[in-house]
C-alpha cells in the first residue's frame, strides 16, 4: 500500500469519528440558536490554549490528565476482554467495590508510605479481579453469558456497597452531613503530587495538582501493550478474538483464556478508583466519582482496544469534560458534550468497521496483484 493509503487506514476512522462528533454537536448547537464556533473555541481556550490570557492553560491540562487516568484504566479493563470477544460490562461495579474495600482496609493500618500505597493498589486489584472472576467462573463452569452476568453483578455490587458503606464502614462523624464518608486514609497512603517536577520545568500549575498516578498509568499502558503484542499470552488472546476455533485448534485453552482475561480485566478495573483515593479525597464517599466504568467501555471502543488508542481516547474524554465546563459560562447547555461523545462513539465504531473492510480489500487486491506478477514471472 502507498503511504497515503496506509495513513488513511490508521487515521481515517478516528478523524471521521471526530468530524462526525463535531458535526452532530454543531447541528445540535444550531438547533438551539448557539454558535458552534463560539462553543468550540470557548472549550479550546479554557481547556488547552488561550492566547489572550497567558498561553497554555496548565491548570486545565493537569485536570485533563487527572481525569484521563481513571478513564484510561477503565478503558484498558474493557479493552482486554474486547480483544478476545469477551464483554466485561461490569467494570463499573468492579471499580466501585474495589475502591470501597481498598479504602476501608487501607485506613486500618499505617506503614512506610511506598509499601502502604502498594498494599492498597494490590488490595484494589485483587478485589476487582475477584468480582470479575465470578463472571469468569460462571462463564467457564456454567456457560453463563458474561454480558448478563456482569450486568447482574453490577447491581449486586451497587447494593452490596451501599449496605457495607451505610451500615458498617462509614465514618460516624460524617453522619448527618451532606456527604457521608469513610474514615480517610492515613497520610502514609497519600500519593505526592508531581507539581514539584512541573515547577522544575518552569510550569506554574496554580491550584491544580498533577497526580503521580499518571506514572503508573504510563507503566500499565506499556505493560498492556507488551503483554498483548510481545508475549505468548497476548498472541493467544488475540487469536481467540480473531477466530476462536482456529485458536483452539492451535492448542489455546479457551476456558483458561476466558478466566485469565476476566481476572486481568477486573484487576485493571480495580485501579480506576485509585486516583481519587490516593491523590484526591483519600476516602470513599456518597459523592465518589461514578460512571468511569461505563465511560471506559467507550474509551476502549474509540481507542480500538489498544493501549495507545485508549490513552488518546481517555485524553479526548478528559478534554471534553474539562472543556465542557467552559460552556457553562457561555450559557450553552453542557449536555452538548454528551451528544458529542455519543456520536463520536457511534461514528467511531462504524468508521472502524468500514475502514477495516476497505483495508482488507486493499490487501486482497495487493496480494492478488503480487500473485499475478509472480505467475507472469514464472511463465
Amino acid at each position: 500500500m502507498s503511504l497515503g493509503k496506509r495513513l488513511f487506514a490508521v487515521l481515517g476512522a478516528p478523524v471521521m469519528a471526530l468530524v462526525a462528533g463535531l458535526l452532530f454537536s454543531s447541528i445540535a448547537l444550531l438547533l438551539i440558536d448557539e454558535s458552534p464556533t463560539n462553543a468550540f473555541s470557548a472549550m479550546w481556550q479554557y481547556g488547552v490554549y488561550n492566547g489572550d490570557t497567558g498561553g497554555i492553560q496548565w491548570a486545565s491540562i493537569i485536570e485533563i490528565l487527572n481525569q484521563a487516568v481513571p478513564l484510561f484504566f477503565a478503558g484498558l479493563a474493557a479493552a482486554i476482554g474486547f480483544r478476545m470477544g469477551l464483554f466485561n460490562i461490569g467494570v463499573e461495579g468492579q471499580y466501585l467495590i474495589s475502591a470501597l474495600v481498598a479504602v476501608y482496609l487501607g485506613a486500618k493500618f499505617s506503614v512506610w508510605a511506598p509499601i502502604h500505597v502498594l498494599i492498597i493498589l494490590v488490595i484494589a486489584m485483587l478485589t476487582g479481579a475477584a468480582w470479575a472472576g465470578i463472571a469468569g467462573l460462571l462463564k467457564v463452569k456454567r456457560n453463563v453469558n458474561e454480558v448478563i452476568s456482569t450486568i447482574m453483578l453490577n447491581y449486586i455490587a451497587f447494593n452490596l456497597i451501599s449496605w457495607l458503606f451505610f451500615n458498617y464502614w462509614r465514618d460516624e462523624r460524617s453522619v448527618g452531613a451532606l456527604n457521608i464518608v469513610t474514615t480517610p486514609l492515613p497520610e502514609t497512603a497519600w500519593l505526592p503530587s508531581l507539581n514539584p517536577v512541573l515547577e522544575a520545568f518552569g510550569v506554574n500549575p496554580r491550584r491544580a495538582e498533577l497526580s503521580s498516578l499518571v506514572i503508573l498509568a504510563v507503566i500499565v499502558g506499556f505493560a498492556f501493550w507488551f503483554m498483548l503484542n510481545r508475549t505468548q499470552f497476548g498472541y493467544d488472546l488475540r487469536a481467540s478474538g480473531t477466530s476462536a476455533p482456529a485458536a483452539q485448534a492451535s492448542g489455546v485453552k479457551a476456558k483458561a483464556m476466558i478466566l485469565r482475561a476476566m481476572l486481568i480485566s477486573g484487576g485493571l478495573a480495580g485501579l480506576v478508583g485509585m486516583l481519587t483515593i490516593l491523590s484526591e479525597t483519600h476516602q470513599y464517599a456518597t459523592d465518589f466519582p461514578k460512571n468511569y466504568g461505563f465511560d471506559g467501555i467507550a474509551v476502549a471502543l474509540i481507542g480500538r482496544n489498544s493501549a495507545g488508542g485508549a490513552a488518546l481516547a481517555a485524553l479526548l474524554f478528559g478534554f471534553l469534560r474539562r472543556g465542557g465546563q467552559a460552556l457553562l459560562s457561555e450559557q450553552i447547555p453542557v449536555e452538548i458534550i454528551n451528544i458529542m461523545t455519543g456520536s463520536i462513539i457511534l461514528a467511531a465504531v462504524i468508521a472502524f468497521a468500514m475502514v477495516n473492510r476497505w483495508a482488507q480489500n486493499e490487501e486482497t487486491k495487493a496480494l492478488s496483484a503480487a500473485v499475478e506478477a509472480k505467475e507472469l514471472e514464472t511463465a
Partner: protein
Amino acid sequence: MTISQEARPEAPQPKSLVKSFFTNRVFVSALIAMSLFSLIRILTGTAEMSSFQSWGAMLRLAVPILLAGLGGLYAERAGVVNIGLEGMMILGTWFAGYGAFAWGPWRGILFGMVGGLIGGALHALATVTFKIDHIVSGVAINIIGAGMGRFLSTVFYVGRTDAGVTQSPRMTGSVERFTVPILADVFKAMEDTDWFLIGDIGGILHGWTRNISWFTLLAFLLVPASIYLLWRTKFGLRLRSTGENPWAAESLGVRVYTYKWVAVLISGALAGMGGAYLVTEQAGLYREGMTGGRGFIGLAALIFGNWRPAGVATGAAIFGYGLTLQLRGESAAVRALLLFAGIGLLLYALWQFRSRGVNSLLSWIGGVLLIVAYFMVEEIPAEFIAMAPYVLTLIVISQAAGRLRMPAADGIPYRRGEAH
C-alpha cells in the same frame, strides 16, 4: 424450579390444552409452590405477602420490564443482540413525557414508541447495515440515549417553571382504568375468607382484576400476540429464521436485512413503550434516570425466559415482585419469603434426591441456610431485598444454562453472500 420445565427447547405443542394443563408439571409445581406460600403466610402471620395491593403493584412494576424483555425478544429472535434496550427505553421516557404533557397519555405512549423506534433505527443501522458488533452498538446507544434525554430537556424545558433539565411538566389526565365486573368482587370475597390457598389465589386475582389500566392490559396482551405473530405466522417464521440461520434463509428467498431491520425497529418501539409506561402509569412525568436499569433487567428476563414470550413474562413477574417488596418496604414479607425459599429448595433437593449431584447438595445447603437465616435475622436490609432478583437471575441462568437455548445466529453480524 419451574423455569427448567419451560426451558425445554421447542417442545412439541400439546394437542388438548385443557387436559394437558392439569397434568402439566409447570402447573403441578406452581400449585405446590402456591400451597407452600399460603401455608407460610398463615403460619408466620404475614398478611402483606398476598394482599391485593401488593399484587396490583407487582403488575404495574412488571410491565416496563416485560415490554423491554419483549423488545429484546424480537431483536434477538432475528439474531440481533440488543443491550441498547436501556438507551431506547430512556428515549421512550423522554418522548412519552413530552407527548403526555402536550397531548395526554395515549399520544404520550405513541410518542414514547416513536422515541424507542429512533433508538432501534440507530441500532439497526449500525448492526444490520454496517455490521458493527451488536454489543458495541448497544453500549453506544445507551450512552446516546442518556445524553439525548438531558439535551432535549435542556432545549425544550429550560425556562419553564413547571419543568427543567431533569424533568418534564406533569402530564394532563391519565390512562383510564377498569375493574372487571363481578369477577373482581368474587375474588375479593375469596381473598377476604383468608382460607388456606383460596385466600391467596383470591388475593392475586383480585389484585389483577381491580383498578387496572388499559395500558397494562394492552401490555399483557402483547404476550399472546407475540406468541402468535412469531410462531404462527409466515412473518414470524421468516423473522426467526433470520436469527437461526440467516444464510439458509437468504438462500430460500427471505430478505434477511429487511426482516432484521423490522425486528430491531419493533424492538425499539416496545422498549420505548416500556419507557412510556413508566411515565404515564407510575410517575406522571419524565424524570431523568427513571428507567433505573429496567432495560438491562428486561434483557435478563429475556434470557431467564429462554427467549420465549411466556418465559419473558415469568421473568418480568419475578423482577416485578422483587421491586414490589423493595418499594413497599415489606421486610416482614421478605423475611417470610426466606422460609418459603428455604423449604422450596429442600423440596427441590428431595425431588432431585436420586441424582446425588452437586446441584442436589447445593440445594440442601442453601435450603438449610435460608431457614436458619429466617430464624436468626430480625430484619432484612433493604439492599439485600434489592439485590435478590439479580442474584436469583444469576442462579437460575447458571443452573439452567444447559437448557437455555438462544437463537443459533444471535449476535453474529450477517453479511449477505458470505458462506458460513
